């Protein structure tokens, strides 16, 4: 690469506007040189600066009694869980890289999110993935799913952090625009907390980890544009991951943080060395000066522009107390890693970069890191919104066989068992996995450091968010919370990954704004602050944008092993009970999409006050030992939830069945069976506890229905005596267990 003259064309090519360029000139008091233009372009890209979203993200509640580091202040938030322990967790997208190079795109996504967590001083102990693809009937979608799963498997398994959960949806809206959102959680003692700050004039700046190459230059800029037929050419913007290197880096950094030689530490993710230097300086209220010739490089002839903008993986920046350098170098030496002293902290607030002694960059760090313009984008309600909402669904015919529909739904890859995926992930390493994937509504991990356990889940139904972004956003939080409640956990906090189309389009921005407001309101209601996350715009190709998909990652705390509850029925004779309303419309349901090919309708009624009551009643009953199984009713409705509670507990051929009789109704039967009204939990209880559970729910103003009993072998569902569904569990289990695998082989 060669240095180029800075012209307006070059500025526009870098994704900056003319106005932004003027602002840069006024910050510098001169025109930027080529290297400085590159530096500004990545720091002020949407991906790094959140310039189009920041105004709305401020709506999120970010504080609470447990919050030790709040969203936006550092690489990830930190939450107190008592006993002197804290957790740090975050979700991030790696959508664009995964669209053009699924294996490395997904792998480096994992690498990046793990660094975000251990840079806080936490040991990463769990990963989850939230994935979205088009329909598996398309060969390219199968290629993408296979590549993404292999990439996650490659990186997560090798580094030795279990992938314990997540979710996958398959919908035509994600065709050509897969979403790959990755979540990592780590645990630390309070005193081990580390921050990404450069301070203390004269302290040394260390570059540690892998050497810098030309990979990933302008990755952040790539992530800030729509995909098109030329996106393939962006393949060189995708980095290559080395999980072994990251394992060494992880162990070395955690060992280093046990000394008190470190002032600050930050990973080099998007915008690499550029971002880590200016952000640490800005947070520390200091300046920083580095010499690029000292940066370990694996390619010859790199110019400053390339070294600064490279997104080579597995690298960290560490600010070391003056006089403690030898100690630090010894630790990295032990792990056979580079540790290069590349500069020092200054007091002039400048990010100053030298190359062989020549000054190549001099920019005020704070203004570079924090003063990117914030835009309030225009928004407009799209025409489809009211049309879908008022769509008359009464003409939709009832199916001729409810049993066939049940099987169709159980075999739908979005609902079917994801064994083909999670068996490729090591979900047991670190030996904390108490509730593994495929068993329950959320993953549960014990903690070796205390008696408490953690439940975690990612969730979002993009179709709901398309049909009603505000309610859909609320539901994403409510359902995530309901999932961990069903495991016996009290929800603590969330992280979010907001996947949307092009924010310059008013109708897309309307979706974004409404989703954010819905999430913010739900988080206030559930007292689950947002601890951080990521915005991914431009998930759009010439055929259109993805459905708005604000993925919520939630973590809950379980007080005791005795409270851990799973979704599967436990014993014949137990009584099956529904907590929450029984009737539901079919708008926005998987049933409507799969059986009738329609993505439309008003979402079933959602009342957040009722949702809170249902969750709190369920959690209280679990803690009182009254509930033997609890399962959230979601995609596929009550019938699918019943089938899953029968199938899920089965090791080999021991699955249970159920016989339930629904009360007479004036509503559509397909709605009662397959509708996806929220605020509903299917539980099973010992016959001796039925009265207690019934009274307790009613006293707390939660609808409660005794549906029937747990049986052997068959699932029978009737409505006031008339049989609607009667299937052998072995048959429906086979469909549920084998469909995804047979799609992929």
């Amino acid at each position, binding site marked *: 690469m060669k240095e180029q003259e800075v012209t307006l064309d070059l500025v526009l090519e870098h994704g900056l506007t003319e106005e932004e360029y003027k602002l840069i000139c006024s910050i510098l008091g001169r025109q930027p040189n080529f290297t400085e233009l590159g530096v500004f372009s990545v720091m002020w890209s949407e991906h790094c600066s959140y310039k189009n979203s920041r105004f709305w993200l401020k709506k999120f509640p970010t504080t609470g009694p447990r919050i030790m580091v709040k969203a936006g202040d550092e690489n990830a938030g930190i939450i107190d869980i008592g006993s002197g322990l804290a957790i740090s967790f975050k979700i991030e997208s790696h959508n664009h890289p995964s669209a053009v190079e699924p294996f490395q795109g997904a792998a480096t996504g994992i690498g990046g999110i793990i660094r975000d967590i251990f840079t806080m001083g936490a040991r990463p102990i769990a990963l989850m993935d939230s994935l979205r693809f088009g329909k598996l009937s398309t060969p390219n979608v199968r290629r993408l799913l296979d590549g993404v799963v292999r990439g996650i498997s490659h990186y997560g398994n090798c580094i030795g952090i279990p992938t314990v959960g997540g979710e996958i949806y398959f919908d035509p809206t994600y065709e050509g625009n897969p979403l790959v959102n990755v979540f990592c959680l780590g645990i630390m003692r309070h005193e081990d907390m580390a921050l990404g700050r450069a301070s203390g004039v004269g302290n040394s700046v260390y570059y540690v980890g892998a050497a810098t190459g030309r990979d990933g230059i302008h990755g952040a800029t790539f992530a800030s544009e729509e995909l098109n037929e030329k996106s393939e050419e962006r393949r060189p913007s995708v980095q290559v991951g080395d999980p072994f290197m990251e394992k060494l880096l992880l162990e070395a950094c955690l060992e280093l943080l046990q000394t008190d030689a470190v002032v600050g530490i930050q990973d080099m993710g998007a915008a690499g060395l550029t971002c880590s230097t200016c952000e640490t300086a800005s947070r520390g209220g200091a300046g920083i000066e580095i010499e690029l010739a000292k940066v370990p490089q694996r390619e010859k002839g790199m110019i400053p522009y390339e070294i600064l903008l490279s997104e080579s993986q597995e690298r960290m920046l560490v600010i070391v107390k003056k006089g403690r350098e030898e100690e630090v170098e010894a630790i990295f030496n032990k792990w*056979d890693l580079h540790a290069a002293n590349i500069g020092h902290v200054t007091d002039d607030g400048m990010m100053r970069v030298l190359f062989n002694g020549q000054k190549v960059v001099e920019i005020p760090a704070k203004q570079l890191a924090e003063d990117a313009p914030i835009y309030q984008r225009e928004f407009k309600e799209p025409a489809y919104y009211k049309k879908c909402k008022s769509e008359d669904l009464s003409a939709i015919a009832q199916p001729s066989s409810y049993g066939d529909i049940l099987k169709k739904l159980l075999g739908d890859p979005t609902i079917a068992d994801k064994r083909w995926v999670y*068996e*490729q992930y090591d*979900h*047991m*390493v*670190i*030996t904390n996995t*108490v509730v593994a994937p495929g068993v329950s509504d959320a993953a549960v991990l014990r903690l*070796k450091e205390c008696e408490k356990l953690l439940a975690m889940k990612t969730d979002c139904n993009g179709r709901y968010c398309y049909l009603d972004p505000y309610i859909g956003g609320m539901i994403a939080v409510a359902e995530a919370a309901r999932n961990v409640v069903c495991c016996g956990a009290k929800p603590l906090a969330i992280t979010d990954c907001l996947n949307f189309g092009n924010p310059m389009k008013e109708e897309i921005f309307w979706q974004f704004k409404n989703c954010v407001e819905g999430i913010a309101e739900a988080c206030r209601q559930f007292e689950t602050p947002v601890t951080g996350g990521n915005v991914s715009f431009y998930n759009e190709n010439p055929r259109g944008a993805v459905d708005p998909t604000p993925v919520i990652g939630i973590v809950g705390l379980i007080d005791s092993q005795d409270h851990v509850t799973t979704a599967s029925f436990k014993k014949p004779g137990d009584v099956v009970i529904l907590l929450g309303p029984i009737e539901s419309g079919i708008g926005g349901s998987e049933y409507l999409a799969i059986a009738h090919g329609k993505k439309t309708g008003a979402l079933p009624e959602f009342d957040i006050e009722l949702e809170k009551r249902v969750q709190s009643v369920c959690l209280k009953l679990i803690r009182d030992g009254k509930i033997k199984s609890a399962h959230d009713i979601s995609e596929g409705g009550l019938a699918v939830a019943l089938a899953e509670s029968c199938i899920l507990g089965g090791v080999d051929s021991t699955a249970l069945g159920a016989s339930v009789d629904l009360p007479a109704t004036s509503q559509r039967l397909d709605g009662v069976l397959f509708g996806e009204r929220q605020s509903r939990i299917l539980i099973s209880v010992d016959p001796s506890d039925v009265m207690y559970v019934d009274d307790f729910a009613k006293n707390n103003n939660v609808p409660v229905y005794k549906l029937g009993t747990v049986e052997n072998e068959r699932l029978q569902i009737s409505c006031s005596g008339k049989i609607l569904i009667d299937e052998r569990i072995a048959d429906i289990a086979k469909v549920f267990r084998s469909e995804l695998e047979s799609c992929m082989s």
Partner: protein
Amino acid sequence: MLRFGVVVFPGSNCDHDCFYAIKQFVSKDVEFIWHKSREIHEFDCIVIPGGFSYGDYLRTGAIARFSPVIGQIREFAESGKLVIGICNGFQILLECGLLPGAMLRNTSLRFICKYIYLKTVNSDTPFTSSMEQGRVIRIPIAHGEGNYYIDPDGLAELKRNNQIVFQYCDANGNISDNTNPNGSVENIAGICNKAGNVLGMMPHPERCCDPRLGSSDGLAVFQSILKSLTVSQ
């Protein structure tokens, strides 16, 4: 008290799990052994844990065999002391020739992590002495290269010397192609050396010592080690 040493190669990732399981359920006296260490003679049993030593980019265990500690382990094994290699540890023992045979990629060409059933076909080793012959245990596997291969002559010798210790089976102990998760010759999941003091196994006993995690069947392996060491002391 009996001393256990858990070897740490760069890229080992089940080292902490083995350490924790031993400390919690077997012996308080357990230490990590850095791969550059040259002093391991004071231990009673060496555990080579699972993971991806050196990233396993070339071939599993192919680089770890050149670590300084391997020479020490070889001497340790030759002196008759106990060495157990689990998963990547098994692969490393094959690569450095302490056990016969080699590992291929799973026939599915995919990583597999799940619970399987394992039959103890030789209870006359220090690693299985507290289990009755034929006992079936439920235990996890987690590997991409667990497809054990040995040529027909080698296989005959393994059988002649009674070196096959564990085979993949179903819940009732039936051994068939249907219960073979990775394509291993004769469903072999674990073997020992001729002398019986070196064991390699693909499944992870350290992952199933605590009943909270779904099974405590793996404890039998560590209890056997404890029992035989106590007897020999």
